[in-house]
């Protein structure tokens, strides 16, 4: 039993993201959405959300029963793997908890009472129920760690068409993803005709926009973990499968995640041709070929001039969050550097993400800082490309072999403040030569155009004269 009753969750979106991870990892066969007492506003939306994250073919139940009974009661004991329970009554929560099978999820929410009321409910965490969860979840993960017995089929190369390649980016357009903007630039430079389609549109709109283009390549973003409110994952996979069959589209999924396990551990071979991975962790569940596909830099011919507004000795641009392992140690190190040497950090108080301003920022500071993730094998930080690719000096602990230490960047020890300060002193003296060497290296081999070429050459033979 995964028990969320002790967690004060203020924003529904965050709550659902957390829940989504749990559901993906435990692979429920059926999800019950329950509202108890006062009808929960947006219950239908929650049902749709559960539908989007549940494995294909599984059912979703929505109920406002006060206590599990009748058909729901029997399903809880046999098929139901997760319950969203909205109640102010601890006894109701206990009833659901007791009725669920081991390994299930119970998400509690109190619509009409203050959160402290849940302290009474969360006492149950210490009961035998939680022990059952640990046992069953561990077993499931071990099962999944065994690679699939059916190897992914090899990629069959086809002749490059004698016309511009047509290419679609299907993803979340509501933010400036480097992947989205980079693929747009890279494909345009290859002479392809490219367009974006929002994954937040409804399925029929997405289908029409893709079909009228009949693309050769479909780059997907968040296909397997789509944002809330858009088409659910099983619908997106059905569409992708139909595009592959209908006009031979090549469907690509991108996984830049530094997570230890995939968020979608299911077979997607009917819908996907290739997984582009920014890590070396196999994803046997997907049963599709994969390739190592790192982030990249935008094209740039020359290093820009420094901009007064961005002047600094050392700068860091990225998320600052005091959470567990993902961002906590990095954030602590950055804060210590702010304290010690007045390091500049973006986003600043304005909250503006300056990713697209890197061509101004990189030449304006002595150096920029980044860190790798040793716990995520093969994962390479995006700063390894974006900073030197814009003429910046990077201080980093792990560039994944992409850059040469003391030639293209200045190495440091992970999260070690003194080591970073020493690296900054080196950068200060050698900045001009490192900037130039790193910029040329990245622009020569690691732009988004190179990444797009890598994919195109995997699927298309150029002999015979393609137009792209």
């Amino acid at each position, binding site marked *: 039993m995964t028990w969320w009753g002790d967690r004060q969750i203020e924003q529904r979106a965050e709550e659902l993201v957390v829940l989504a991870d749990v559901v993906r990892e435990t692979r429920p066969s059926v999800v019950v959405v329950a509202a108890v007492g006062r009808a929960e506003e947006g219950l239908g939306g929650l049902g749709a959300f559960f539908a989007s994250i549940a494995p294909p073919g599984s059912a979703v139940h929505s109920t406002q029963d006060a206590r599990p009974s009748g058909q729901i009661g029997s399903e809880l004991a046999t098929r139901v793997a997760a319950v969203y329970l909205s109640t102010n009554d601890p006894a109701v929560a206990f009833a659901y908890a007791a009725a669920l099978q081991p390994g299930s999820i119970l998400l509690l929410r109190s619509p009409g009472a203050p959160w402290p009321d849940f302290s009474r409910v969360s006492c149950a965490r210490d009961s035998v129920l939680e022990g059952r969860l640990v046992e069953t979840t561990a077993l499931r993960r071990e099962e999944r760690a065994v690679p699939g017995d059916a190897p992914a089929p090899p990629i069959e190369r086809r002749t490059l068409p004698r016309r*511009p390649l047509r290419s679609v980016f299907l993803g979340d*357009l*509501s933010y400036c993803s480097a992947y989205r903007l980079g693929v747009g630039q890279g494909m*345009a430079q*290859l002479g392809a005709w490219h367009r*974006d*389609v929002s994954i937040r549109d409804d399925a029929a709109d997405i289908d029409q926009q893709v079909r*009228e283009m009949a693309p050769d390549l479909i780059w997907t973003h968040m296909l397997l973990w789509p944002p809330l409110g858009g088409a659910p994952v099983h619908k997106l996979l059905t569409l992708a499968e139909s595009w592959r069959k209908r006009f031979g589209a090549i469907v690509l999924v991108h996984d830049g995640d530094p997570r230890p396990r995939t968020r979608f551990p299911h077979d997607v071979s009917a819908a996907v041709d290739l997984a582009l991975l920014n890590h070396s962790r196999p994803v046997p569940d997907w049963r599709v070929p994969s390739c190592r596909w790192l982030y990249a830099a935008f094209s740039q011919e020359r290093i820009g001039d420094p901009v007064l507004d961005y002047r600094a000795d050392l700068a860091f641009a990225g998320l600052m969050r005091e959470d567990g392992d993902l961002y906590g140690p990095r954030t602590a190190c950055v804060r210590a550097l702010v304290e010690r040497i007045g390091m500049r950090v973006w986003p600043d108080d304005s909250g503006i993400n300056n990713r*697209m301003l890197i061509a101004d920022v990189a030449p304006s500071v002595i150096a920029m800082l980044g860190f790798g993730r040793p716990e995520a094998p093969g994962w390479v930080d995006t700063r390894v490309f974006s900073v030197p690719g814009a003429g910046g000096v990077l201080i980093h602990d792990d560039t994944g072999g992409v850059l040469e230490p003391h030639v293209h960047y200045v190495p440091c020890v992970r999260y070690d403040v003194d080591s970073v300060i020493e690296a900054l002193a080196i950068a200060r003296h050698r900045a001009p030569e490192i900037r130039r060497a790193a910029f040329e290296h990245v622009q020569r081999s690691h732009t988004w155009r190179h990444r797009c070429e890598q994919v195109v050459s995997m699927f298309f033979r150029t002999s015979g004269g393609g*137009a792209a």
Partner: protein
Amino acid sequence: MTRTPMWALPMSERPLRSVMIGDCDHYLSPYILGVAAACGQLGVWHTQVSIRQPAAVIRQRLDELQPDLVWTHMLLWAPTGSCPRDELLSMCEAQRKRGAFVLLHDGDAKEKMRYPSSVAHAVSLALVNHAYDRSVWGVPTMWWPYAAMPQFALARSTASEFTCELAFAGQVVENAIYSARGRLIEALRRSPIDFRVFDSTRGLNTLWRTAELAACAGAVLGFGRKDVRGWVDTRVTQYTGAGAILVHDDVAGLFEPWVHFVPYETGSADSVVAALQRLKGEGATFGFAMRERAFEHAQAHHSWTARVHQVLERAFGRKE
């Protein structure tokens, strides 16, 4: 592959940053798609923001990007439910004050203005596909007809659903604007020509299939609207730029008859039939040479890359 020289901000050398605010998620606009393709080729860092997003989202995107160029689509007549026009203009004004070059696009074939007020505070230049008076906006205008998608080589002709003697792709509707076109299409359907119509109101838009259609169809038909001063049919550049043999009655002087395209007399199906017969009589080599000349001319002078280049020169000076 041709390598197009990249554009950078004068005095700084960093790549230009550019954003399109428009109905980019749903509307299959050649302008939106063409500008994006051209910016990619010219080394401009470009992105798009839907005009249907809340004002706060658009504003945030602009803050993040701090663009040198702001292209707008439907700025003065945004789709229902979009960010209000005054807010959009206010954002554009703020960008101009920052130093951005703000562009308004007016591809309308309408003499009467949909927004007859000054936009001089918010807009740097209006790109117009007509010769009507827009002086009330209080901004300079540039004649900026539609253009061809960038293409490096002629597509190969293969048997496909587009294979025919003459093709027309577009809306076939009965209204005041298109009634003359509809009559000619009907007449051609009754002619001995193997004529195929790809009606976008009855199926999918073929804009993205332009390269194949141009290569597979023996010729592609287009219509001007001589009553609309300075307006150029999008097919004039779209199909020549993809290597089609264009059959057209008004190319606004952008191309030369019997060099780059096949002319016909407005409204006359007989004239179209006669023009195609003459083309056939000239032989396949002549036809292929016409395709190549049209393709090269269009890609050099009337591609979206050429159009965007034209704007960059206006905004930032001539590229050395």
